[in-house]
Every structure is written in structure tokens, then in C-alpha cells.
């Protein structure tokens, strides 16, 4: 998957070099780029989740609940320094789990800073206590984004979705989310193949209206094929005994160290909430 993504990305760059090709179908190029980025992000997150580290060794349920508690603590805090404390703890956890800070910076911190920064900056001038308010907005969103990145970078995604059962999310919702995750990549591949064949057939510049028509038709083809795919999948499910009810195999018991880590998370979150009152 990785290698394929990279070789395709290489092909992209070559084609992008030809300016006429890029102008011809900006929609197609940009969309292929977004699709590749997504596939790449997923592949990297999956690889990191398989490596060994502090967080990777924990049960997904205690990790999910623990990190959610920390996110709540950050959102509840009415002071800045407890938020900073959680941020520092998140950075320490990342380091202990072999998650490189550069990766977090590139995929989480810089986008979050640019995005929230652009929104928060004007408040410094137009809102009373705007500076402090901007600091709240930026630190909170940055810390929460880092915490959820820790979760995603240290847990295989199917396991993370299954851990939602621990939060009493209904089995059918967990089953559907698992299936959504599974078909994300199928439809991504269909979309990418469609875009690439569209690119190879496109010669010369296209007008805006023509590009819009192509974009809508591409989405339309995907939609038709998705409905068709869902009908086939339905038959495959029936064939294996599906009667409309979702079952999940309950996960193994929580080990003492999973309870311990959950207690540590909860204790720290309670502490931060206390400080932040």
C-alpha cells in the first residue's frame, strides 16, 4: 500500500511538472493529491500503531477512555497552566511511545496552529481580554489535537473503533463504523483509479464549467458504484448468516496494567480538572 502510494506520488510529480497537464484538469490533480494524502496518512498511522512503545502496549479501551478524560479536563479548565501541563504530559507520552515529534508537528501542530491561529489572532484586537482568550483557544485546541493524535498513532484503527463499545456505543453503530472504515479504502481506490484514467484521457485545457461537470460526474459514478457495491455486500453478509443483528466478540479481559493505566489517566485528569477550576 505504502509503496504503491509512493510510486503513484512519484508519477504525480512527473505529471505535475508539465504545466499544461496541470492546468488541463486542476480538479483531477488536486483530488488525486487529497486522496493520496489520506491514504498516506492512514498508512503511516497504521505503521506507527504497530510499533512498540508505552501507549501501544495498553489496551485500546483504557487508552480511549483515559485520553478522552484528559481531553475533557483540558476543555473544562478555566486556567491556562493546567492546559500547558497536559500538553507537556502529551509530549512526554509521545516520546515514550516512539512517536516522533516531527511527525506530530507536521501533521497536527502546524495545521492546528495555522488554522486556530488565524481565527484567534484578530480576537486580540477586537475582543476584551482578547490576548488571553486567544491563548485559551490555541492552547486548548492544540492540546486536544495532540491527545487525539496520540490515540490514533498508537492504536490500530479497527481496535480503536471496537473500543467504542467500552463507552456503551451500540453494537450496530460500532459494526457500521468498522465497515465504513473498511470501505473507505475501497472507494478511495475506485476514486483514484477513476481520476487517473480521467487524467490520461484529458488533453488540453478545460473550462471551469467543463471541470465542474467532470467533478460532479465523478462523484455520480462513485455514488452509483457505491450503491451497487452495498447491494453485493449485503448478499455476502446474508450468505454468512447475517440476520440484521450485529455481534462483536467481547474483547479479552482488562489486565491489571490496563486498569492501572486507566487509573493513572483518570487521576491525572481529575488533578488537572481540580487545578483548572
Amino acid at each position, binding site marked *: *500500500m505504502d509503496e504503491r502510494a509512493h510510486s503513484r506520488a512519484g508519477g504525480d510529480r512527473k505529471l505535475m511538472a508539465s504545466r499544461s497537464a496541470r492546468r488541463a484538469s486542476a480538479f483531477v490533480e488536486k483530488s488525486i493529491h487529497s486522496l493520496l494524502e489520506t491514504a498516506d496518512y492512514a498508512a503511516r498511522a*497504521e505503521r506507527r500503531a504497530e510499533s512498540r512503545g508505552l501507549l501501544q502496549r495498553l489496551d485500546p479501551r483504557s487508552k480511549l477512555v483515559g485520553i478522552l478524560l484528559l481531553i475533557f479536563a483540558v476543555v473544562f479548565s478555566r486556567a491556562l497552566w493546567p492546559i500547558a501541563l497536559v500538553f507537556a504530559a502529551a509530549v512526554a507520552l509521545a516520546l515514550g511511545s516512539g512517536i516522533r515529534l516531527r511527525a506530530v508537528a507536521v501533521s497536527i501542530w502546524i495545521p492546528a496552529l495555522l488554522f486556530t491561529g488565524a481565527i484567534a489572532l484578530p480576537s486580540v484586537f477586537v475582543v476584551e481580554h482578547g490576548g488571553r482568550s486567544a491563548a485559551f483557544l490555541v492552547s486548548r485546541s492544540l492540546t486536544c489535537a495532540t491527545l487525539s493524535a496520540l490515540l490514533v498513532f498508537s492504536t*490500530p*484503527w*479497527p*481496535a480503536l*473503533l471496537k473500543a467504542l463499545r467500552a463507552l456503551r456505543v451500540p453494537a450496530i453503530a460500532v459494526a457500521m463504523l*468498522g*465497515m465504513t*472504515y*473498511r*470501505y473507505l*479504502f*475501497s472507494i478511495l*481506490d475506485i476514486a483514484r483509479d477513476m481520476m487517473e484514467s480521467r487524467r490520461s484521457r484529458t488533453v488540453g485545457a478545460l473550462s471551469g464549467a467543463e471541470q465542474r461537470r467532470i467533478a460532479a460526474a465523478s462523484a455520480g459514478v462513485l455514488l452509483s458504484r457505491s450503491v451497487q*457495491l452495498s447491494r*453485493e*455486500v449485503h*448478499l*455476502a*453478509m*446474508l*450468505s*454468512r*448468516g*447475517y*440476520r440484521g*443483528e450485529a*455481534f*462483536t*466478540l*467481547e474483547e479479552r479481559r482488562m489486565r491489571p496494567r490496563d486498569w492501572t493505566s486507566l487509573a493513572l489517566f483518570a487521576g491525572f485528569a481529575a488533578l488537572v480538572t481540580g487545578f483548572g477550576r
Partner: protein
Amino acid sequence: MSATAAVFELQQVRYRYQELTALDGIDLRIEQGSRNVLLGANGSGKSTLLRILDALYFPSSGSVRFHGRELTPKLFESDENAFDFRRRVGLVFQSPDVQLFNPTVFDEIAFGPLQLRWEREQILSRVNTVLDRFEIAHLRDRPPHRLSGGEKKRVAIASVLVLDPEVLLLDEPTAALDPRSESQIINLLASLGDGRRTVVIATHDLNLAVDIGDRCVLLERGRVAAEGDPREIVRDTELLGRVNLIHEHLHRHASGLVHSHPHRHPHEH
């Protein structure tokens, strides 16, 4: 016909899909422990026939009997009947995108047993046995988009065989595989027919018909064009040409070869 018991008996089965007639009066008897190959070009109705056998589609007219009992939508309204049939008959779909709908390999194999409400311990031990037997234990937590074509096929077959069905239906099991995975899958399929399990394979692959089948049913536009020993059918180049399974130029060009090494027909019409 013979002393062996019939698993499936089809009488004048017709299946219409919107305006299209996919099956047009099929009479067929499938015997216990036999290995049948439904041979036909694309659009000959072989996939539809497999879905009729798996009670996913029900005939527009005519009847399908499984061990003497007619398969009707009404029969499948009861959980008990549905579970009994689903445990005894399994279908492997052609496309891995359709067959593998779970987020991980483990979930995929456990899906059937979970639906049939097996006990937790029974599921765990059976799934682990199957993972080992199909040599896919190392793929246990992988999502399907990170499997190769051959791995996907092995997981697909394992996900159906986990229930140990007495009838195994396969739709184009060797389509879109590289030669090495293809021969692995053929070996796997050949090892499954131990005389106890009934196998029905839909394919346009003449090699597969000869390697695996002990009986061949040739389909043409929703009808049975011929049936009999696969070795004899693949020798009938005129017939195969007529049903679009080999090219005209190919059989003239290589008429001597067709007997021992029938050519695959890679194109779709």
C-alpha cells in the same frame, strides 16, 4: 440417475432481473461429494446460478430443492431454517471487496460463527484453527486493504470454510490472481474435495475445470449447453468456440494443444 443422494435438484429454473432473463429453464442435479464446474463466458448466467444455489436469489419460476426441501423466501423467514442452511452451504464471492467486509482478518473469519450465535470459546478456538490451517495467522489483525490478492482470496475461502459447510460454492476463485497465487489456490481447492464436501465452482477458466472438476456443466445464455466429463468438454473446440470460451483463431491455431493444455480465455465479452 444414480444411487448417490442429490444435494441440489433444480427444475426448470428461470430467473429474470428487471427486463433481463439471466437463467432460462435450468434443470440440474448436484450430487453429494461431487466436484462440479459451471463453465461459461461472462453473462452466461453462472454467477446467478450460484446465487440461486446459495438461496440469495429465488427463482422467478421453477424450483430449487436442497436435500429434497424446496428453497423459498418463506423458508428463510425462520432463523432456525436460515441458520441451518447458511451453516451447510457457503459461497465465496468473486470480488474481495464484496467478500471481505470486516475491518480485520480476524473479524472476517469470526463473522459467520458470530452470526450463528456460537459460544465465545468455540468461536475463538475454531477461528484460531482456521487461521493456522490457511497459514494466515500472521495476518490476523490486518485490514483487508493491506493484503495481497492471493492473501485476500485465502482469507475469503477461510471465512466461508470456518463454518465447515457441506457445500462450497465458489465464484471465479482464480480471477485476477498472479500465477503463483493462482496455483496455490488451485492446490487448496483440490485438497478440499475429500469426497465428503460438495463443491460447485463457476468459472471461465478451462484449466480449473480440468484440474478440479469431476463434472462440468457448460452454460450458454442462461441455459445448459452441455454437461459431462470436463476433459471431454474442453476437447470439444467447436462447442467452446460457440459459447465464446475460446477464440476462433486460437483453436485453429493450436488445435493439437487444446486437448492436453486447454488455453485460458482471459478476455471478457
